[in-house]
C-alpha cells in the first residue's frame, strides 16, 4: 500500500481525554472499578487486557454507546459523560464488520458528513480523499459484500476519520482478520493516526498489537488499570505481578530475595519496584534474558529448539524439573539440540519477583 496522506485529510483535532474514577456495574459484575486514565492530545493509547477486563466497556463509555454509573469523562476539558453518542463526534471502528450493507463504500464514508449537512459534492470529494488515505481509492462504488475483511475495516476507518472526530476509538478492529493482513493494517492505522494527529484509544487483547501501536499501553485487569506506560517501559519494568505475567513471555524460576536483589542461577539480579522483597520467590525472567552455554557435564538438558527466523527459542529442563525457555540469536543457538546438556544463567536485568 502506497497511499499518501492528502493534505485535506490531516485535519484531525488533537484533544485531551480524561477518565475520572469511572465505575460500571453489570448486575454483580464490576466492569469498571475506578478507572482513571489521561490521554494526551494526539496520543494513541492502547488498552490491553484479557477478555472481560473492562477495556471495551471503557471505550464504549467514551464513545457514548454505554453509560457509566459513576465517574466522569472529559474531552478537551468538557464533561461529555451524559452527552449521547450521536452528539459526541467520536469516530469508532468496531471489531465486527460494521459497514452499512445497503450503501456503497463511498456512501458509507460520506454518511457522517451527510448527517452534518455537508453538500453532495463536498461529501463525495471528502469520501474519495478518505478512501485514498486508507489505500482504497477507486473502491467507492463497491458494496461491503464486494470487499474483503481487511478492505471493509479500511473503509470503516475512513468513515470514522471522515467526520474529523475529536477522538478515534478502535475496538479490536483487526481481530477478525488473518495474521498477514492484520500486521499490514496495524502499521497502516498507526501511520494514518500519526498523519492526521487524532487522539486515539485502541482496545485490544493482542499484546503484540498493543505494544507495536501504542504511544502508551494501559494494561487492565478486573476493571482496573494495572499500569500505563510506554511499551518498552511496560515490558521491561512491570509494576505489578499481573503486568509482569500478562505482558510478554516469562519464565517462573525459584530464587531467594533479600535487600532488593534476588539470586537466580548464581547471579544477583536487582528487583523491580512492587516485587516481593524477601524470602523464597518466583522470579519472572524474560526468555531473552536467559543465557545457555554448552557444558558436557551440565545438569540442564535441552528438550526442544524452535527456529523463529532470526531468533531461536530453546526449552530446557532444570534438575528439579522446571521448564525454562531461552531466546537467542540463531547463531547463538547453533550448538543446541534436543538432549544436549547446558549451563543456565541470566542477564542482570531488573526482574519482577512474586512471593512463592
Amino acid at each position, binding site marked *: 500500500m502506497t497511499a499518501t496522506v492528502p493534505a485535506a485529510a490531516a485535519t484531525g483535532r488533537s484533544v485531551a481525554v480524561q477518565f475520572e474514577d469511572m465505575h460500571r456495574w453489570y448486575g454483580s459484575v464490576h466492569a469498571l472499578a475506578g478507572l482513571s486514565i489521561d490521554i494526551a492530545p494526539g496520543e494513541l493509547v492502547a488498552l490491553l487486557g484479557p477478555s472481560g477486563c473492562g477495556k471495551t466497556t471503557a471505550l464504549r463509555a467514551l464513545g457514548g454507546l454505554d453509560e457509566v454509573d459513576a465517574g466522569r469523562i472529559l474531552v478537551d476539558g468538557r464533561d461529555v459523560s451524559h452527552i*449521547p*453518542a450521536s*452528539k459526541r463526534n467520536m469516530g*469508532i471502528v468496531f471489531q465486527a464488520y460494521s459497514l*452499512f450493507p445497503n450503501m456503497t463504500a463511498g456512501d458509507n464514508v460520506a454518511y457522517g458528513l451527510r448527517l452534518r449537512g455537508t453538500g453532495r459534492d463536498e461529501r463525495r470529494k471528502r469520501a474519495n480523499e478518505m478512501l485514498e488515505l486508507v489505500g482504497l481509492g477507486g473502491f467507492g462504488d463497491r458494496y461491503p459484500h464486494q470487499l*474483503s475483511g*481487511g478492505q471493509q475495516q*479500511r473503509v470503516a476507518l475512513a*468513515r470514522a476519520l471522515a467526520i474529523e472526530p475529536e477522538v478515534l476509538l478502535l475496538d479490536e478492529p483487526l481481530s477478525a482478520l*488473518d495474521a498477514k493482513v492484520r500486521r499490514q493494517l496495524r502499521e497502516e492505522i498507526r501511520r494514518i493516526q500519526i498523519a492526521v494527529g487524532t487522539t486515539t484509544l485502541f482496545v485490544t487483547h493482542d499484546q503484540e498489537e498493543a505494544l507495536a501501536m501504542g504511544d502508551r499501553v494501559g494494561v487492565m485487569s478486573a476493571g482496573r488499570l494495572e499500569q500505563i506506560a510506554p511499551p518498552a517501559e511496560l515490558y521491561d519494568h512491570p509494576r505489578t505481578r499481573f503486568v509482569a505475567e500478562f505482558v510478554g513471555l516469562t519464565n517462573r524460576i525459584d530464587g531467594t530475595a533479600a535487600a532488593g536483589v534476588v539470586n537466580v542461577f548464581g547471579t544477583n539480579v536487582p528487583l523491580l519496584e512492587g516485587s516481593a522483597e524477601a524470602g523464597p520467590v518466583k522470579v519472572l525472567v524474560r526468555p531473552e534474558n536467559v543465557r545457555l552455554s554448552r557444558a558436557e557435564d551440565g545438569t540442564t538438558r535441552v528438550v526442544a529448539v524452535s527456529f523463529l527466523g532470526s531468533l531461536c527459542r530453546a526449552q530446557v529442563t532444570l534438575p528439579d524439573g522446571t521448564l525454562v525457555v531461552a531466546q537467542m540469536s540463531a547463531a547463538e543457538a547453533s550448538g543446541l539440540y534436543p538432549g544436549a546438556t547446558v549451563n543456565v544463567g541470566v542477564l542482570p536485568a531488573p526482574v519482577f519477583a512474586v512471593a512463592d
Partner: protein
Amino acid sequence: MTSPEGASLGAAAPKGGALLARPKGAGRGRRSSRGQLGARIAILVVVFGYLLLPLIAMLEFSTRGNYGSRSLDSFAAIFSYPDLIDGIATSLEIAVLTVFGMLLLLVPTMVWTVVRVPRMRRVIEFMCLLPLAIPAIVIVVGIAPIYHWMGTTLGGVGGSPLTLTLIDIILVLPYAYRAIDSGLRTVDVATLADAARSLGAGWPRTILQVIVPNIRGGILSASVLAVALVLGEYTISSLLSFDTLQVVIFLLGKRDSYVAVAVALSALVFAFVLLYVIARFAPGAAGRPQRAPEEEPAP
C-alpha cells in the same frame, strides 16, 4: 465361449482399467439419486395437487356457463355488486392500515430490543406469538365491549370497520414477528446501530436509514403476510358485524354462489401474485452474495 485373450483381458481389467472402472457403489448411488428424484417429484405432485385441486375446482365452478359452456360472466359480475366493491375497498384499507400500524409498532420495538435489551427478546417473542394460541372467539368476546363503547362514544369513527385494524394488528403479530425477526438475524443490528449513532445519527435516523433498508426483505414479507391475513380474515369481522371482503363473499354466496367463488378465487390469486412478487424481487430474496472476497492486499 471364452478365448484365451478374453480370459487374459478379463483378468487384467481390474488393474489396467482401474481409472475407467466405476467406483464401488456408484451404480447404487445413481439408483439412489434416481429414487430420490422420483420421491421428490411424487411429493411435489401430491403437494401441488393438494394446493391446486381446490383452486381448479373453484375455477371450474366459477366459469360454468349455460349448457356446459365456459364463461367469465361471474368474474365480470363482481363489479355489479356495490356491497362487494365496498367490502373489497374496506378490506384493502384495513390491510394498508394494518401494515403501517404493525410496522410502526413492531420494527422500532424489535430493533430496540435487539440493541438495548436483548434479554427481553424472548418475552417480546412470547407476547407476539400469543394471538396464535388465543381462539378468535375469545378475542371477540374480550374485545366486543370495547367496540361497543367505541361505537357509542366515538360516533362514526368508533363504528367504522377500519377500527378492525386494531385487532388485525394483533392477529398478524405472530407472522410479522417471525418475518422481521428473520430479517434482523441476517444483519448485526447492534453494531450497525452503534456505528450509525457514533457517526451522528439519532435513533429515528438509525432505524429508518440504516436498519430498515437492511431488513427490507423481512419487512416486505411481514407486510405481505399481513395483507394476506387481513384479506382472508372472516371470523372476527363477522362476529363484530363489519362488512369486510370475506363477510361480503359469504353473504353473496347465499345469493350468487358463482360470483362469490369468483371473488374468493380472485382474492387468492391476488395474494399468490403478491407473495410471488415479494419473493422474486425483495432485496436479499434473490440470494445476494454475502461472502466477502478473499483477502487481498490493498493497492
